[in-house]
């Protein structure tokens, strides 16, 4: 997605009723995950389900990786009785990329019920990905019953606190944050003081020209607080990133794609590899959307999504890929 395209979208996107303030830039059920290319320090994100239409030149940059999210391994209800198959389909799409990604990011809810066998199944399926490195952050479903001990044992080696960490790849600084622990009654996702202090120190020494990619499970912006789709103290975290020219925030949790630009920060959410969730406020609750079996994969972005959601929202993804 070029900057020019973003601007066009802001002006062109006024039918949904949710984006009049220019905050929500695009919403679509497109993509099992997102193929991300960093070019000139700016991250561009493409839906995995539409890559066949992508200009191959756009796929090349300094660094590319894939974000997948919300595998919910163990979920077996009508909304998707076979979440292993849809995750496998996502991996097949990743392996078919003409520009192989350097690594995968998984933005949480790896498992549905934090059961060891659920994590085992995901690990097994991801082993078949050509990209060998997978970086995780936990979702609330990954830290049930044990305050995240099992998650930390499996995925948190070398991480701080409840599993937050940072790493560098080709000059890009990646920061994995944890906002699913110690949630308070009535509240949203929480980063907590310790993590915020760590974040402030972590980025302090970096040059302002360093591209920053932050990834966490629950959105770090107020997507829809009524359903808990936001993080209490995200504004403070974002304030530490003000000096940087290029900041991208990648989240999961809401099982649909949304994007928003605020100053130097671009926010993205990814679809789930397991089941779709309704648009904010368009259902009594954020529970899984039950759709006819023949539609499920299109809602997960494994096949073309054009038929399923409004033409308008999907047209945006088409435009991005043009």
């Amino acid at each position, binding site marked *: 997605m070029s900057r020019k395209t973003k601007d066009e979208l802001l002006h062109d996107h006024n039918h949904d009723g949710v984006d009049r303030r220019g905050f929500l830039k695009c919403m679509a059920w497109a993509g099992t995950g997102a193929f991300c290319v960093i070019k000139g320090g700016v991250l561009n994100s493409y839906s995995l389900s539409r890559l066949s239409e992508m200009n191959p030149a756009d796929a090349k940059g300094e660094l590319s990786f894939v974000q997948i999210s919300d595998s919910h391994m163990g979920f077996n209800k009508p909304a998707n009785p076979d979440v292993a198959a849809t995750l496998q389909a996502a991996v097949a799409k990743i392996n078919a990329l003409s520009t192989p990604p350097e690594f995968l990011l998984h933005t949480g809810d790896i498992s549905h*019920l934090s059961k060891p066998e659920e994590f085992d199944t995901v690990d097994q399926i991801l082993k078949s990905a050509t990209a060998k490195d997978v970086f995780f952050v936990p979702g609330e479903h990954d830290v049930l019953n044990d305050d995240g001990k099992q998650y930390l044992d499996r995925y948190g080696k070398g991480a701080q606190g409840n599993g937050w960490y940072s790493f560098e790849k080709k000059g890009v600084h990646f920061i994995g944050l944890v906002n699913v622990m110690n949630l308070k009654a009535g509240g949203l996702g929480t980063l907590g003081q310790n993590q915020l202090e760590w974040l402030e120190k972590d980025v302090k020494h970096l040059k302002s020209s360093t591209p920053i990619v932050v990834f966490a499970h629950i959105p770090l912006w107020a997507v829809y607080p009524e359903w808990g789709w936001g993080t209490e103290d995200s504004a403070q975290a974002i304030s530490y990133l003000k000096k940087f020219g290029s900041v991208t925030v990648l989240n999961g949790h809401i099982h649909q794609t949304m994007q928003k630009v605020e100053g130097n920060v671009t926010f993205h959410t990814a679809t789930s590899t397991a089941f779709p969730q309704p648009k904010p406020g368009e259902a009594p*609750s954020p*529970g899984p959307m039950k759709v006819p079996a023949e539609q499920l994969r299109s809602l997960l972005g494994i096949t073309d999504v054009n038929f399923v959601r409004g033409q308008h929202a999907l047209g945006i993804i088409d435009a991005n890929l043009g």
Partner: protein
Amino acid sequence: MRRSVRIANTAVIALIFFGGGAVKQSSFAARAQQKTASAAEVKIDNFSFGPAAITVPVGTTVTWTNRDDIPHTVVSTDKVFKSKVLDTDEKFSYTFDKPGEYPYFCSIHPKMTGKVVVTN
């Protein structure tokens, strides 16, 4: 007829034997009565507790049932009780022995809140 009289007599003797027969009998009755009124149900549907607030007498066992496709928990805000994660159709029960207000929430989806008020 004779047989039933004999059983009644045995019962009386037993009560006398244990002492304070009449008193004991009424406390048994009270307890039995309380038992019939001592269970309450809360359903979890559509990411909410229903009813969100209930008032029950001391000694009541409240049972929560998760009827969503998504797991939830029942966790006391004041750390009085805490369920394991409840998958679809799983239940959690807690018996309230002291009067008071017990706010609780789902620790996975903290926007989900409820309250049990326990009266004397």
